Every structure is written in structure tokens, then in C-alpha cells.
């Protein structure tokens, strides 16, 4: 019988994540004043709490279930397991470790994985080659991208981890929600068989209700962000992404948004801006630089540029009807899943995405868009120019496009980002 340490060693990168979050939090707590990076402080506290519990659960021998970020973590609450977000681990270790996780990208790259696939998967793939993870099962939808569909079979074929796939259709229609709802149910049942547990859907229902409350808080928060100046600092965006994909369905997630809302309300009341003066209001319709999230703080303080929204922070789903029958429940879950950040934009045509961006630009009084085009996200590869034209024609604002790798500092460096944005901002003034 393996001892607690051996059991805990099934998720070594999670231990790395815990350590990096703890030290980062300690630095913020001990060095910065209360007003310094509150969203990072609050976010780390809440995520840390969950990660600590998960590590303890792993030490107790609960099954380790890897999940794609597009598979909502609250849906896994029907099991007693340790849920590990594959993409979250890659990117948040990349954001928090001083040396990033490029070592692991290179490991899998040397194994033959194409350079143009997603670093969100490359990180954990590389870690798996080193046996730093020992998953009991992995669950993923067939969305949002080719990189997901192409990369995940590696876990099954090379590492022999059972891989459970929920097929997500392209196009948002009634029949799609019904089909994907059924896929969610089947995949959770299959996962239960693999890990030897019966899914407890009542327990999951509670987590969904909790997330309904989170959605209400987010809606309130996003209404406040429409104010000038924005009452939320830029760092909120990556931390909110972390909360969404790591701790959805937990009381810590609810607590995170409650605390952030409180903070935003105070700033709104006092018309405060985190960086001192808000000079430019930007929307980032895609992702931020997870290889170095300090860019967020630099933009706030050096350029006075607010990031009002990024892709993880403008996808609000309808509340899930948790009071009706099972079919209605899974239908709601499917609808939420298909409206998830990045999944929404990838599982339907571009037209709604363009409309959403135009609406957001107007509603949030944006001065510009900054479109980060990731090397891996081919599903977004044909939209930047369409969006640029739409914003120009409909709202009269410009858009800067920057090519990059979300999780790899070597493709477009932080300095290159700063230089490009600085020059762009000069054209706005």
C-alpha cells in the first residue's frame, strides 16, 4: 500500500504550484501595502486554499482526474477526486515560476510534438513524460481547438491514462445543447466507471447552484467595470481566469468574487483607479501574457491602460436550472459549457463574436482593442482582420494585433509587448 508521500507524488507539479503561489502570496502580503495588487492577494488566498485541500486529498489516495479547461470543474464535483486542470497547471506555473515551464515545453517538443501546438497542453505533456503526474483518468471535450483534439490522445496512447471524451458539436443550436448534455452525462458516467465511483449528481447540483451565485456576482462586477475609471485592476483578469478554471464549484470561488466585488464597489464610489489615472481603456478579446502576468500591472501603472475584459472575463452564461429534472440540468450544463471562454468563440461562426466585440466596445467605452494572436489558436486565426475592420467601421476605434505564445516567453518577449503597446498608445493620444 503506497504511503501518503507516494500518493502525494502523483501530482508533483501541483506541489510546485502550491509552493509558487505561497511564496508569491507571502511576497505580496509582506512587502506591498494593502492597496498593492489586491486581486492577486485575494485570488491567491482563495486558489491556495483549494490547492492545499486537493494535495491533501491526493495524499489520502483519492483518484487524480485531469481535465481540460473547457470541461467545467464544478461538473466533477459529482466525484470524490482530485481535479487537475491540465491547461491551468501549464499556464499558472508558467506565470508564477521565475524560470517558467519552458523546460517542459522543450521535453515534449523534443519528443516530436509540433512547435505550433498549444503550450497549455505542452507543459503537462512534458511533465507527464517525466512522470511528474500520474493521472487515474483524463476527461476532455472535443473543443475548443485542433490542438486539443490532436494533443490529448498522447495521454492515452503514450502514457496509458484512460481518456474520456465528450464530443462537443460545432454550432450553437438547441440540438447541439441536447447532444452535448447527453455527452456530458455519458462521459461523467464513464469516468465514474474508470475511477470506481458512482457519480453523485445531487452533490454536483449543489456546486452548480454555487456557480449560479458566482455568475450573479460576475454580472454585477462587469457592470461596475463599465464605469470610468474602471474600478478593477488589470491583474484581476488573469486571476479571475485562474479562479474560473481551477476553483469553480467551490466556496472559495464565491468568496473570491464577493471580495472582488466589494473592492470594486469601494473604488467605484471613490472614483479610484488602481494605476492612479486611467488614460486608455482597452479590451483584449483574446488572452493575456500568461508567461508573464506582470504586464497587467505595468499597463495599469506605467501607461494608465485598463484591461477592461479579456476572453476569460466576458463570457457570462445563463444560470443553470438546478430545480428541474436531470435532462434540464444537463441541458443547462451543456449550454454553459458551450458558452465557456474560448469555447463559445470556437464552436460557432465568427459573426456573434464580431457582434459581441462591437457591443462590448460600446458598453464599456473602450478606446481600443488589443488582439493577441496565439500561435496555437488556429480557430481564431481568421478573425483578427475581420474584427479590426468591424471595430473601425462600427465603433471607430483601432485594434493592435500582437502575435505570441500565451505560455512561452521566447516567442514574443515581455519587452516586445511593452514596446508595441507603448507605440500603439502614442498613436491614440
Amino acid at each position, binding site marked *: 500500500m503506497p504511503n501518503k508521500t507516494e500518493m502525494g507524488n502523483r501530482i508533483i507539479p501541483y506541489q510546485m504550484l502550491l509552493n509558487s503561489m505561497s511564496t508569491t502570496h507571502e511576497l505580496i502580503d509582506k512587502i506591498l501595502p494593502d492597496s498593492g495588487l489586491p486581486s492577486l492577494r485575494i485570488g491567491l488566498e482563495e486558489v491556495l486554499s483549494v490547492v492545499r485541500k486537493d494535495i491533501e486529498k491526493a495524499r489520502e489516495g483519492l483518484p487524480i482526474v485531469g481535465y481540460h479547461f473547457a470541461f467545467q470543474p464544478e461538473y466533477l464535483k459529482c466525484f470524490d477526486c482530485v481535479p487537475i486542470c491540465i491547461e491551468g497547471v501549464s499556464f499558472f506555473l508558467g506565470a508564477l515560476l521565475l524560470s517558467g515551464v519552458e523546460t517542459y515545453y522543450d521535453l515534449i517538443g523534443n519528443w*516530436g510534438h509540433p512547435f505550433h501546438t498549444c503550450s497549455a497542453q505542452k507543459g503537462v505533456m512534458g511533465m507527464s513524460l517525466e512522470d511528474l503526474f500520474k493521472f487515474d483518468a483524463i476527461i476532455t471535450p472535443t473543443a475548443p*481547438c485542433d490542438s486539443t483534439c*490532436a494533443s490529448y490522445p498522447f495521454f492515452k496512447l503514450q502514457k496509458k491514462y484512460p481518456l474520456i*471524451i465528450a*464530443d462537443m458539436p460545432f454550432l450553437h443550436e438547441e440540438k447541439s445543447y441536447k447532444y452535448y448534455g447527453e455527452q456530458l452525462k455519458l462521459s461523467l458516467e464513464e469516468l465514474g466507471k474508470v475511477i470506481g465511483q458512482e457519480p453523485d449528481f445531487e452533490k454536483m447540483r449543489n456546486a452548480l447552484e454555487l456557480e449560479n451565485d458566482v455568475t450573479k456576482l460576475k454580472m454585477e462586477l462587469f457592470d461596475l467595470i463599465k464605469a470610468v475609471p474602471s474600478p478593477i485592476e488589470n491583474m484581476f483578469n488573469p486571476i479571475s481566469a485562474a479562479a474560473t478554471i481551477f476553483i469553480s464549484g467551490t466556496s472559495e470561488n464565491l468568496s473570491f468574487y464577493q471580495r472582488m466585488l466589494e473592492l470594486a464597489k469601494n473604488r467605484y464610489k471613490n472614483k479610484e483607479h488602481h494605476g492612479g489615472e486611467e488614460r486608455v481603456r482597452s479590451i483584449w478579446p483574446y488572452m493575456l501574457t500568461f508567461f508573464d502576468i506582470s504586464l497587467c500591472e505595468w499597463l495599469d501603472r506605467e501607461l494608465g491602460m485598463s484591461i477592461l475584459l479579456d476572453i476569460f472575463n466576458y463570457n457570462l452564461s445563463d444560470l443553470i436550472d438546478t430545480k428541474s429534472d436531470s435532462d434540464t440540468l444537463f441541458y443547462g450544463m451543456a449550454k454553459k459549457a458551450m458558452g465557456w471562454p474560448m469555447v463559445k468563440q470556437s464552436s460557432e461562426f*465568427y459573426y456573434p463574436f464580431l457582434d459581441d466585440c462591437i457591443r462590448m466596445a460600446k458598453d464599456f467605452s473602450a478606446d481600443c482593442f488589443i488582439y493577441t494572436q496565439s500561435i*496555437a489558436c*488556429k480557430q481564431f486565426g481568421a478573425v483578427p482582420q475581420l474584427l479590426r475592420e468591424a471595430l473601425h467601421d462600427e465603433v471607430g476605434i483601432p485594434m493592435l494585433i500582437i502575435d505570441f505564445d500565451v505560455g512561452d516567453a521566447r516567442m514574443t518577449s515581455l519587452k516586445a509587448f511593452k514596446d508595441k503597446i507603448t507605440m500603439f498608445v502614442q498613436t491614440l493620444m
Partner: protein
Amino acid sequence: MSLNNDPFLNISNSIMNSYVKEWQAKSKKVVGHYCTYIPEELLHAANLLPFRIRSTGNKDTDLADIYMVRFTCSFVRATLDMALRGGYDFLDGLFICNSCDHTRRMYELFDLKVFKRKGFEKKVPRFYIAMPHIITDEGFEWYHKEIEEFKEEIEETYTHQIISDQDLLNSIKIFNKNRDLLRKIHELRIIDAPKITGSEALQMSMSNSSIPKELANQELERILKFLKESEGIKSNVKRIMLVGSEVDSTDFTKLIEDSGALIVSDSLCFGSRNFLDDVHIGDGNNPLKNISKRLYYRLSCPRMMDDYDRRFDFLRNEIDRANIDGVILQRINNCDLAGCDNMLHSHRLKDLEIPVLDLDREFYQADTTRLQTRIEAFLEMIK
């Protein structure tokens, strides 16, 4: 006599051809599609000419680069470029499915930038089929419903009458015959003294997807007869299997074959995957469902997420059957699907001690010397 300058094979050298012109001169419609998961038999039964979109000969992506970032597939960009320059103005319809992240966006780009460009007045209907990403019973039900809806849309847009089961059966027979002819020709390609080169086989496949199938069948019968009577290629060149991304230009296959090899088999979109199996006819009932079944359950392309083992088994069997000396895996840069399949193939083939070369390239031959050096070195390495 050889297949050099064969008029049928030469059709593949350009996009427009005399058969398409003749077809349209009779007021009949030509419809474009990117992917083999589109049910061609159904289009044929609707008296439409399905034309597989390619970009043969186009080395430019300048115009397309405005709309598609450099991380997208240069093959797809080249087709869009060609369309933006008017190369596909002859189409009377466009059929897209979510084959990959690159091609599925052609739905919007053709809509907004090709068919709405200044001076282009024709109304070109577009259709979309949402393909599942895994092979399951539920997935089949989904796909078949999509095909049923697709049929209704075609009836509404083009035929204005019901496409009957008999129409479908007739088309199935013509397409089954087409696949049978291609299989027979393929058998003459994998023998010890192959009767046809890989480049010629590719040309044949592209021509076959660019003209009416009845005429293609006549041409294929002629070629089959000719090949049966011809002498095979007797040489000591290495026998290669070519696997991976879309190849729709003989520039690349000729580069391999001019380096001292013969491509005697393949697993390519424009290759053998297309003709391995037929639509089941049975008692003639529900031909549409049988069309869906063949497309959905056939040997998949790498877009199908959980079907890798079947794809590798095909490779393994074909390597034995065609007495392959080495496998060239290739991917067009930024093709995640072929790239990851190739990664897995590469390890498994090495485990089996089968020589393998994993190449990345662009759709157009931008770096011929690098490729040639790598191919020549690989061929020298094969014992």
C-alpha cells in the same frame, strides 16, 4: 506510351477545366468543397458537380494573409488567395464542414470577403455540416441528421424537388464504380514493378475530383486498361509511403520521386483513404443512411480524435502489402492534426524499425533545397 501528358491527368494542373465549362454551359451547377466528409453522392444525385477545392499552382498567399494570420495553414491560405483573385468565381455553391480549424473558417471568409467583394454580383449559397470529433453511435446519429438536413437544403436551393432514393442509388453505383477503379489502379501501384508513380496517382486523384464522375470513370477505365498492358517501373529506387497533410501539388511528390524514390502508397486526403471502401447498397433501402455510414465510419483523417489506432493499423498493413522501404511523414506547418498524428506514427514506426522521416513544410515549395537534402539523406539511410 506513358501517362506523361495524359489529358486526364493534365486536368489536375489547373483549377478550371473544359469539363467544368461544358457542365456550366448546360446551365448546370458546380459546387465547391474542401473535405471528403462532404457526401458527394448526394450532390451528384442533385445533379450538381462537386468540385474539391485546391490551390494547385498557386504559390501566393499575399491577399489571403490579410485575413488569415501566419499561424494558419498555407494550403488553406493559398485556396483563399486564389478565391480572392477570382479563381473560384465559377462556383455555384460552397460546402464547408469543421474538418479542421483552418478550413472551417472559410465559411465566413468566403461569405464576407470572396462572395461580397466589389464587382462580384453572383449569389453563392453556402452550407455547413457539423461533424462529430469521435466515432460513436451517438455521433453517427448526429452526423446522419446533419446529412438529412443538408439534403433538404439542397432540395430547397437547387433541385426544387425531392431527391429520390433511386437517384441516390444511381449515384452510389457511379461513385462505387469510381472507387473500385481507383482501388484497381492502386493495386497496380503497390506491386513489385509499379505501373504508376506517386505523382501520377496524385494527379489522377485530383483530376478525378474535378470533373463529372461518369466521365472520370471512362477515363479511369482507359487508364486501367493502359496500365495493365504497360510495363512496370523496374528499378531499385526506394519504395516510399507518403503520409500526412494535404498534398495537392506534384511539386512535392516529384521532389521525392526525383530524389531516387517511388511513392507506392499513401495515407493522404487526395489519396488512398478516399477509395478504400464503398457505400453499402444491400437491398437498396435508405441509401442516404448508407452514404452517411460510409463517410462516418471509414478510415478517419486525423481530425477524428479517438481513432488513432485504426489509422496506424492501416499504415502498418499498407507497409507490408506495398513492401514499403520507408515512410515519409509530412505536415504543412501549423497543421496540429497531422503534426500530432505524425508524432505518434514516428515513435511507433521507429519501434518497429521501419525507417521514417518526419518533415515539416509549406504548401508551396518555399524551401526545396532543405527538403531535398533531408529526403536524399533519408533515402541514403534506408538499407
